[in-house]
């Protein structure tokens, strides 16, 4: 009697239960579908932006040399769609913001991991997290009400300028650079610092010759991520940069970036016109630049591992 009950119980355990198996399969399928949604989203995004962006060259007869020229006159006769001023504007704003932000961000990270007493870290950590969360339009608004009038008083120019964009962006990308630098520095084993101190090195020697050198790929990854963010940022930049179609040759002069031109004109150009298609081509450049940044980051992470 007792024996039979045991074997039934064993049977139940060992035989795959139909309901269980269905559940198992359903679960697996649900997670797989979510994964597919992500991949399909990316590929349709690439397809749609690329097909719209390419039509400028395939159907509107705009040549690549015209597209990359410096003459922007969409209303001229004949119209000209040279986007070089905006491409240069985007690059200059990005690079200059990184030049200001990289030393500050990495410096703050070194302070937090190597120097700060515990209260210093307790203050800075939430400060950095908060900076990440502040919406970009708020940065734009503060730039518009504080930085632009300040620059107007100091330089005598219009205030709306490349410099205003750089200052706003450098604050925006600071937390990105800092948080990644902190992660990198924290992953360096303690033994490395101790070895350096044991040799009689000062803290600064340890930081500059051991820590920064070993963590360089990680630190650079943070800077490139910050640059990617700066390159694609639209509204905060558009609000302070002035939006003229002049070549960016001067720090205190109003210019445009790819994102600011798209933001301003996508709504008021008619779909299907050359002007509108050119804006899509500019969006395609933004997309391609994102891919370039990702390739750069992957390359650096691999160098860091080897």
């Amino acid at each position, binding site marked *: 009697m007792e024996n039979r009950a045991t074997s039934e119980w064993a049977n139940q355990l060992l035989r795959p239960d139909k309901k269980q198996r269905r559940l198992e399969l359903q679960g*697996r399928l649900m997670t797989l579908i979510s994964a597919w949604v992500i991949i399909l989203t990316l590929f349709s995004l690439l397809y749609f932006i690329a097909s719209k962006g390419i039509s400028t060259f395939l159907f509107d007869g705009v040549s690549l040399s015209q597209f990359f020229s410096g003459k922007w006159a969409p209303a001229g006769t004949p119209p000209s769609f040279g986007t070089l001023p905006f491409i240069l504007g985007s690059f200059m704003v990005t690079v200059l913001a990184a030049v200001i932000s990289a030393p500050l961000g990495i410096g703050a990270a070194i302070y937090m991991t190597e120097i700060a007493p515990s209260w210093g870290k307790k203050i800075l950590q939430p400060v950095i997290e908060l900076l990440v969360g502040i*919406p970009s339009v708020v940065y734009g608004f503060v730039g518009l009400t504080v930085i632009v009038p300040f620059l107007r008083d100091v330089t005598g120019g219009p205030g709306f300028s490349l410099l205003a964009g750089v200052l706003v962006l450098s604050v925006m990308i600071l937390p990105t650079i800092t948080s990644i630098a902190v992660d990198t520095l924290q992953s360096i084993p303690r033994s490395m610092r101790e070895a350096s101190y044991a040799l009689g090195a000062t803290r600064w*020697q340890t930081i500059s010759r051991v820590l920064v050198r070993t963590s360089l790929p990680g630190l650079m990854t943070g800077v490139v991520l910050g640059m990617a963010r700066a390159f694609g940022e639209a509204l905060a930049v558009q609000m302070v940069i002035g939006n003229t179609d002049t070549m960016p040759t001067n720090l205190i002069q109003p210019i445009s970036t790819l994102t600011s031109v798209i933001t301003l004109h996508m709504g008021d150009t008619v779909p299907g016109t050359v002007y509108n298609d050119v804006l899509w081509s500019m969006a395609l450049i933004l997309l391609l630049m994102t891919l370039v940044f*990702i390739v750069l980051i992957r390359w650096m992470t691999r160098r860091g591992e080897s």
Partner: protein
Amino acid sequence: MNAKLADRIATIVFYLIALLIIGILSGLIGFILVRGLNVIDWHFLTSPPSTLTAGGGVAPQLFNSLYLLVLTMLITIPLGLGGGIYLAEYAKPGKWTDILRLSIEVLSSLPSIVVGLFGFLVFVQYTGWGFSLAAGALALTVFNLPLMVRVVEQAIRAVPREQREASYALGVTKWQTITRVVLPAALPGILTGTILAAGRVFGEAAALLFTAGMSSPMLDFTNWDPTSLSSPFNPFRPASTLAVHIWKINSEAIIPDAKEVAAGASAVLVLAVLFFNLTARALGRWIHKRMTSGS
């Protein structure tokens, strides 16, 4: 002596950098709050914006931001859970997983304006919905989803292996182990991450210009019929959010008090971000305490 001097100088420089950053942040937050809190009152939060005269509020924008957040999360959370579970529990190393990881990386680093333009083509034009909350929510999902997947995957990976093995040893199947053992254990991490992601969605604007639109129809808060255009709950109506409103009044508004309205709306946004941040921390700490105390 020389090395010691350099060390001392470097230390001072690092202190200055830290002070500078704390200064920038407190200046920034202080400026926004001081300027904004003067503007925020009950009238500002509960009345619609005016088009020509001073004294308008941000009620519809505030509601739109919250409603859009809810819609986005309704789509993102199940998909994010699915993707995160897949990566943590099922994915085997190989080409397919590489493609999936690369997709997540690319999607999460795309400029939001590019995502907005994609949403404009697909969710606004091809679906025929026009500028709508639904299109906005789908566009926000595009770059919120990769974040969610990462959050879920990390939280699940942090659950110790022994917990799974104990469950398997009892004869519990894999899917049941995931839903009954692993997910509850990963819940604190998932919740904190979700709230932080929600904070980001709340302040997003560039992707919404071309999907949810820059204007809001007159809303009748007594109209609960989700198919009517004046109903706040209609997901297919255009909607401007707080963040979009700030951008719009700064760049093209003709109301005389644009600066004040922008300051007030900015303060509301920053307070919301602070709220999301603090809630996430508090909740994480609370759940952690409950789970580790063994009750």
